[in-house]
């Protein structure tokens, strides 16, 4: 497992950071590359390994301003993976879904995802 993974944003992929030592992950920007599975693959597998460790408390700041439906599918998958990983443990995952009042797509998706997870503390935060 890589302890730290960081990618700068491009025209169709967001800034992503995963830092196991800081127990922190952040996505920011737009995500609409056609092949999102490949883009998020490395971070997704690292996150999976990290979730199996005894990490205590993990925070994910999601500050995406727009994402396509393939990204939505991947994000939900990631969230459900984390939700399962902490079920029945005392590990904590906090997701801060950070957006603005006028961002309908992101707010709507955040509300839908919040309903899907059971163990994650899911906060929708308006900047």
């Amino acid at each position, binding site marked *: 497992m890589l302890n730290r993974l960081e990618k700068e944003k*491009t025209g169709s992929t967001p800034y992503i950071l995963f830092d196991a030592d800081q127990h922190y992950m952040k996505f920011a920007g737009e995500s609409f590359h056609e092949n999102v599975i490949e883009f998020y693959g490395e971070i997704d597998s690292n996150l999976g390994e990290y979730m199996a460790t005894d990490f205590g408390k993990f925070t994910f700041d999601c500050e995406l301003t727009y994402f396509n439906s*393939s990204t939505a599918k991947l994000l939900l998958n990631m969230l459900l993976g984390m939700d399962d990983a902490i079920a029945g443990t005392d590990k904590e995952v906090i997701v801060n879904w950070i957006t603005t009042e006028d961002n309908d797509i992101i707010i709507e998706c955040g509300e839908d995802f919040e309903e899907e997870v059971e163990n994650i503390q899911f906060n929708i935060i308006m900047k």
Partner: protein
Amino acid sequence: MNSLLDFYRFVKDKDINIIYSGPIWSNGVEGIGDTLKRRLEFDDLPLPTSQAVFSVFVEQMNNMLMYSAEKFVAPAVMDEKQAATATGIFLLSCRGKQYFVQSGNVLRNDQVNIMKDKIDYLNTLDKQELRKFYKQKLREENDNPESRGGGIGLVEIAKRASSKIDYSFERYDDAHSFFTMSVTIE
């Protein structure tokens, strides 16, 4: 049409603001998307409107990448991952506060009814039902890792559209049809 002037007049008369016709590949989508965003900035729209137009564009492009029967191969400029390239046409027309986002591509005839049924079904749903259906599709796709997510993009388009998704299938050749999708956003 003999001259570019005729074409220009035709395009102007139809309120067409952006036309793209040719190969469609990931990095190309990014480039056209950038042009589209800059064009929408002119109109100083509320975020939900410009986002809706952009989102429909992104999902239409993705749909063409998946279903266009015409492939465009340019190995000299593309690496292996990008070689899977489609061909299609995209139009943005603006009439007052109305935006028409259209895509067109050649489709295998055996795909016609599948596409038609999907859109017809989405057209029966209202916004709340679409939201529920979208969530349901996301979950279903999660249970099916092999899926490339083809159905979800159309649901996203239906969610963003201000009216029903308009479409047509015209004969292209014996084995293919030309699929046009028109989405209105207000």
